[in-house]
C-alpha cells in the first residue's frame, strides 16, 4: 500500500534559483561527497523546466545561488556509454540500468552559443533506488571536460542518419 498522504506531508519549501519550490524528502538527491568545487553542499533537486527543456537544473537546496544546467547526455552524444564500477553500483544500490538517471553538466558562456560545452568526462549518476547522487570521473579517453555541443549534435545526427536512412524525412 502506498501512503500518498505521508508523502505530501513531508513536503518542505526551499528557496531556489526558480523561486520557492515545494519538495518532498523523497525527491531530494543526496550527494554525500558533494560535487567537486561544492563539497560542502549535499542536498540537491532536479528541476524540470519546460521553458528550458532539454536543459534541466540540478539545484542546491542549501544554497539558492548554486545551480547547474544539466542534460541527458544522449541528446548531445547519441552513442554515449560507460560502465559503472562495482563500488558505485553498490553505493547506489542499483541492479539494472533503469535504476539510474544520468545527467551531464553544461557550461554555457554568456552570449557565445558556438562555445556551449558539455562535460562528458564527469557525468552525474543518480540512483532512483536510494536517491544518492555522485559525480564520477571516467577513465575513458574518449570523453573530455569540454565537448562542443553544436559539433556533438551534428555528429549524432550523422550517426542517426546512417543507422536509419529509411526513416529520414524529406526536407
Amino acid at each position, binding site marked *: 500500500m502506498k501512503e500518498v498522504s505521508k508523502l505530501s506531508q513531508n513536503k518542505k519549501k526551499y528557496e531556489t534559483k526558480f523561486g520557492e519550490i515545494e519538495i518532498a524528502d523523497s525527491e531530494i538527491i543526496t550527494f554525500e561527497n558533494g560535487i567537486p568545487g561544492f563539497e560542502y553542499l549535499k542536498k540537491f533537486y532536479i528541476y524540470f523546466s519546460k521553458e528550458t527543456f*532539454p536543459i534541466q537544473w540540478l539545484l542546491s537546496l542549501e544554497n539558492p545561488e548554486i545551480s547547474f*544546467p544539466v542534460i541527458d547526455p544522449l541528446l548531445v552524444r547519441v552513442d554515449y556509454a560507460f560502465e559503472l564500477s562495482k563500488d558505485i553500483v553498490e553505493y547506489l544500490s542499483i541492479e539494472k540500468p533503469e535504476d539510474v538517471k544520468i545527467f551531464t553538466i553544461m557550461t554555457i558562456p554568456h552570449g557565445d552559443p558556438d562555445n556551449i560545452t558539455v562535460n562528458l*568526462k*564527469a557525468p552525474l549518476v543518480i540512483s532512483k533506488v536510494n536517491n544518492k547522487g555522485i559525480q564520477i570521473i571516467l577513465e575513458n579517453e574518449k570523453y573530455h571536460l569540454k565537448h562542443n555541443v553544436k559539433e556533438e549534435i551534428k555528429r549524432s545526427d550523422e550517426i542517426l542518419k546512417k543507422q536509419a536512412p529509411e526513416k529520414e524525412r524529406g526536407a
Partner: protein
Amino acid sequence: MLVLSRKNDEGITIMIEDKILKIKVLSIEGNAVKIGFEGPKDFKIYREEVYESIMKENISATKVEDISHVKKLFEKK
C-alpha cells in the same frame, strides 16, 4: 606540510578517526612514482589535476546567465 621520505616498497598509514588508509610506493621509474592505495571505500582518491579541472568546470557551469540561445541548438531542422 608534513614531509616524509619513503623508499621503494615503503608506505604511509593515515588514520582518520577509526578509518585507515594505507599508501605504498610500488615502484620508482625516472620521475614517475607508482603509488598504491588501500582503504575503505569512503576514501575517494583522485589525481589532483583531474579533480581540480572538474572543480573548475563545475564552477564555471554555475555561472550561467542566459540560456535562450541553447534551445536553438536542439531544434530539429
